[in-house]
């Protein structure tokens, strides 16, 4: 899962990036409205954390422009402006949730998880596929109750496939959703992660759809 953070206060931006990184998200950051808008407009994020008081272009404008050009990723507004008129303006501009500063990192993570789940249509914090269960609250995967030991990248690949269960996911999609923008991408490494995951998971759970990509499914 890949997240964009648009926040102009450098320390807070770093704290957010660290907190989200620790929760196994691939994180991109932008420090002003114009950069933030560009990234959100061109990269496929699974969610965006957006501050409203941004230099160069304010957050509401950034959000409106995204929605006007058909970008539908969930957006969580994180701002110190917590008047209800500002919340209503934010929601009406197309935000999906609103969190006011100061905030608890746990709450932000919980809201983001919920947003991402809702976007792909899962009602619960736990996503299951056969014997495999993914608990998004603690970034843990279990098979028949037995906990799996996964690296951060393996978890990201598995989480993305689980969120899009039964869908065919192309290799480039995976690359775009597990790496941050500045990461040195190599689509071959995706094959390596898939191979490692297959070893740790019950056989047959991850299918290779020739020429298209991968699918996590219990359907045959």
């Amino acid at each position, binding site marked *: 899962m890949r997240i964009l953070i648009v926040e102009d*206060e450098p*320390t*807070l931006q770093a*704290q*957010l990036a*660290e*907190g989200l990184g620790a929760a196994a998200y691939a994180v991109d950051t932008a420090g002003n409205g114009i950069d933030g808008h560009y990234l959100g407009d061109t990269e496929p994020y699974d969610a965006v954390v957006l501050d409203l*008081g941004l230099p160069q272009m304010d957050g509401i404008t950034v959000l409106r422009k995204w929605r006007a050009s058909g970008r539908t990723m969930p957006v969580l507004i994180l*701002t*110190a*402006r*917590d*008047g*209800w*008129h500002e*919340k*209503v303006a934010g*929601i*009406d501009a197309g*935000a*999906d*949730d*609103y969190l*006011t*500063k*100061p*905030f*608890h*990192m746990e709450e932000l993570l919980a809201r983001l998880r*919920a947003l991402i789940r*809702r976007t792909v249509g899962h009602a619960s914090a736990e996503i299951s596929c056969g014997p495999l269960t993914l608990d998004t609250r603690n970034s843990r995967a279990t098979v028949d109750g037995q906990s799996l030991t996964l690296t951060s990248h393996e978890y990201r690949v598995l989480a993305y496939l689980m969120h899009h269960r039964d869908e065919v996911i192309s290799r480039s999609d995976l690359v775009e959703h597990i790496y941050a923008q500045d990461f040195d991408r190599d689509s071959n490494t995706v094959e390596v992660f898939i191979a490692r995951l297959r070893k740790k998971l019950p056989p047959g759970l991850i299918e290779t759809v020739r020429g298209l990509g991968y699918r996590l499914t219990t359907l045959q």
Partner: protein
Amino acid sequence: MKHLASHGSLRRSLRLRLLAGTLFWIAASIIAAGWGLGNLFQRHVEAQFLAELKTHLDQLTAQLTLDEKGRPMLALPLSDPRLSHPYSGCYWQVDEIRDSAPAASGLLRSRSLWDDVLTAPPDTPVNGEIHQHRIVGPKGKVLGMIERSVRIDDTPDGKPRSFRLIAAADEALMSAPVARFSGALWLALGVLGIGLVVAALVQVFVGLAPLRKLHAALGKVRSGETPQLDGDFPAEIMPLVDEFNTVLAQNAEVVERARTQAGNLAHALKTSLSVLANAANANISASPQQNELARLVIDQVGTARKQVDYHLTRAQAAATTRMPGTRTPLLPVIDGLVRAMQRIHAERALELRVVPMPETLAFRGDAHDLQEMLGNLLDNACKWAAQRIDVSAGTEGGKLHIFIDDDGAGLAAEQRDAVIQRGVRADEQVPGSGLGLAIVDDLARLYGGELTLEGSPLGGMRSALTLPAPLR
């Protein structure tokens, strides 16, 4: 008292003042004109009367002669026919003067005198002078009379003789036209006066109509129907209207700027607080023991945040509750908040229902403050509801009543007041009790309304908010 009151109303009412002034001047001018014109006419008639008498006297002087026996006679009768018509009012008479004293009255008389003789006061004008008198003539009429003395040297017996020549006329000949003229004059002036009074009334009412319109426009601003004075006004009033609108706009601008700055300050503070809180949280996660400082920071950050929120909201509301001309339609605010709630509480699959209400329902006050109050109440309801939340509203007696019902667990009656924490200052609040309801109650009170918590027909809690409605 009554006198004082009427005096006061005259002083206060522009209309009465204008009317009183105009009526006074109309009356004064008409009386002066009537008096002046009447006088002028009377003098003119008097002059004419005298001129006529003088003509008679001159003719008499010219025609007077003596016959061969020395009796005075007229060479030709005088031309005015009235002088031969009995008691016509125009008379002449010739008396003889002997030894400088009148004697032999009525030696010669106009036919109009018939058997009467004019009795002139004793007087002997020096030769050539004309004297004027008022006498009582035939039938007791008052006559205007002029006389002169004439000496005739060319007499048959050679002794010069003096005569007193008198021309007289009834003063009624003069006063009748004056009376007729006065009657016509006062009638005409009366008609003119009535016309002027009607014109003055119309002028005052039409002329002051813009002031009534201004009053109505001001009323609309006060009731919050319009933010500015609307409408076309005459050039004399327009500057006042423009100035007033400028003041209103400046007022609104100052409030808006103060708000923005307070908002900016809060934003800057809270961003820093976020950094502090996050660092402290990270510290606690890293070493769960030995981190009293981190816990203190988190604690204080929470308190600071509430303080900032509380005072920011209060300051903003205090600035706007005194602003005239603010009126916020209720329904759009509720709709916006319901949209926001459905997103923010999307996890809970709540059933938020707005009971149909008239679109004309409005709050006499600022939109942000209304959103703040309803937002907090709705947010609470969404947190505590099992599934269903109803929003309803209505007006009664100039008050706007808004009810937010939920089907949650509700609160025991004795807990309700404690939740609102009436009159308790923010810094005395129990940590974690939540300032939401206290802020709502505070805002409502700033507007002269109130918040009460009751049991809801839905089974949970009802938040009843009473606020001022626009005047009209």
